[in-house]
């Protein structure tokens, strides 16, 4: 246990220093070392391995989510949406949004808010003629989303493909776009988006600080950064149970349902390697965000971090 912790601290220290200085200090001709689950790999290798992981799990991603978390991941994503409380006209960038869970929830939420607003408006205008009522329905039919838009960005082509198919299947067409991009180097201009979300994706980013800087860059002033991610459980009893479940049950489920033990082994290991709540909060503050805060869900199994570009 201590060895693992030591390893982790070392890897974390390596992660937070720029590559050049590390090289000079160690006097070695190797690339910086990173963690891939509990293994140590180079940056390039890590990116490749993660790409392969998601390429292989893409088709069974949603089913696996449901079986691993017993469906609770839907509640987590709903809570995230509630916390965001988007108003019509919001531009959302969902990074590592792969199969589109957050994007679809966003569209539903904005749609219902828009409908409620419309109803309220109609209630106010009690003495409209039929002609005026008809016209107001026409006008709002064309922007049933109220100009809200969501851009789903993912580095993995397979995940995007699955997401597009799901959108077609569920009937989502308006206000949705799919972009292939790397979170560390987003293909968007500065000051574009109102909200930036990354749900269960930042763990897989190789350079988290770069991703946070990019998030800061593409957000409008006043924009909000939201991160939903597995985090650390502080309660010792719960932590033991959680570890037991993670390491004994999840890879088995992975093998049985998706035929892929190793990817799910990577998943649970990467959760353990990810920085805990306070560390991530400090990293977000370093990127320039204000009013950074986090909310633990399920005693810390999952945490939502939020920050504003002010």
């Amino acid at each position: 246990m201590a060895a693992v912790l030591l390893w982790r601290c070392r890897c974390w220290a390596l992660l937070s220093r720029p590559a050049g200085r590390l090289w000079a200090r160690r006097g070695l001709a190797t690339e910086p070392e990173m963690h891939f689950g509990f293994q140590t790999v180079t940056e390039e290798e890590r990116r490749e391995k993660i790409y392969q992981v998601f390429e292989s799990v893409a088709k069974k991603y949603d089913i696996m989510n449901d079986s691993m978390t017993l469906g609770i991941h839907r509640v987590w994503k709903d809570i995230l949406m509630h916390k965001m409380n988007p108003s019509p006209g919001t531009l959302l960038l969902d990074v590592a949004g792969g199969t589109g869970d957050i994007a679809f929830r966003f569209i539903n939420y904005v749609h219902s808010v828009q409908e409620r607003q419309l109803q309220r408006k109609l209630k106010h205008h009690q003495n409209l003629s039929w002609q005026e009522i008809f016209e107001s329905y026409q006008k709002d039919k064309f922007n049933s989303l109220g100009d809200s838009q969501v851009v789903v960005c993912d580095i993995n082509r397979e995940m995007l493909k699955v997401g597009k198919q799901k959108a077609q299947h569920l009937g989502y067409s308006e206000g949705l776009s799919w972009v292939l991009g790397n979170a560390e180097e987003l293909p968007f201009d500065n000051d574009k988006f109102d909200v930036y979300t990354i749900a269960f994706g930042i763990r897989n980013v190789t350079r988290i600080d770069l991703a946070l800087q990019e998030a800061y860059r593409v957000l409008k002033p006043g924009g909000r950064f939201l991160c939903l991610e597995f985090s650390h459980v502080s309660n010792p009893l719960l932590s033991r149970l959680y570890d037991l479940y993670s390491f004994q049950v999840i890879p088995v489920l992975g093998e049985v349902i998706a035929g892929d033990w190793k990817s799910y082994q990577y998943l649970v290991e990467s959760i353990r390697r990810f920085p805990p709540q306070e560390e991530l909060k400090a990293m977000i503050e370093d990127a320039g965000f204000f009013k950074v805060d986090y909310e633990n869900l399920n005693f810390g199994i999952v945490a939502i971090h939020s920050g504003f570009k002010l």
Partner: protein
Amino acid sequence: VRCQHYPPLRALQASAALRRASDEHKKEPLTSSSQQHFDPPPAGHQPEQEPQGPRPSYTGQGGQESEDYESEEQLQHRILTAALEFVPEHGWTAEAIAEGAKTLGLSVAAAGMFHSDGSELILHFLSECNAKLSELLEKEQKLVQLGEAEKKPIDEFLRHAVEARLRMLIPYIEKWPQALSVLLLPRNIPSSLNLLTSMIDDIWHYAGDQSTDFNWYTRRAVLTGIYNTTELVMMQDSSPDFEDTWRFLENRVADAMTMSNTASQVQSTGEAVVQGLMGAAVTVSSAETSRAVR
């Protein structure tokens, strides 16, 4: 320019840039008294207002930078002030705050900084109203001191102060019942009670109350009662310019004055009665003694 590698100058860069760009539309910064009421500045935020360590030399124009320094609380105040304009349309909700943020050039997501039920907006409005009332009473007191105006008798002063304060609600009167219900949420009760008591205290202070005995409490309790009931009457008053409300207020203040007179009358009557009884008792006992002696 990214400042992340230095101990960060925690000026709000994005909003500072916006303010510089839209200086002509800038609203006036609020008085600092409004901050004390419900925004306990957390100790951890203090470092944000000063640079940590020596200032890097690239901010050579140090004077200009420090002018644009704005803490998070100040930005929040600006957003809430801008949001008040949208309250008659959207109510005391996160939507109004989002619209307010939009007018300042910020994204609508900035409304996420506040609670979704609009409590902060209402509390902000209340503290603004209280500040305006204090200013008004202060000005009038100065006029009286300079001899340019007559000193009002107590009941008229109270009436005038409560009316002035309630008139500030008129632009938002339709949505005010919603605000009152939000203020009654357990979470908001400490702050709203605080604001209410400080306002009543202010009014009595300018009315010239210098009592140091139990009167201090009774006076404030009575005025709080008058204020709250008048506010409720105002909610469902549909007379032109709220005449019914002001008449109600006049009657309540008169009642209060009578009551205090009555109270002192009752007290003196009570004393008189007690003295009479004592005298009767003494007479009876001395009659008994003299009979016994005989």
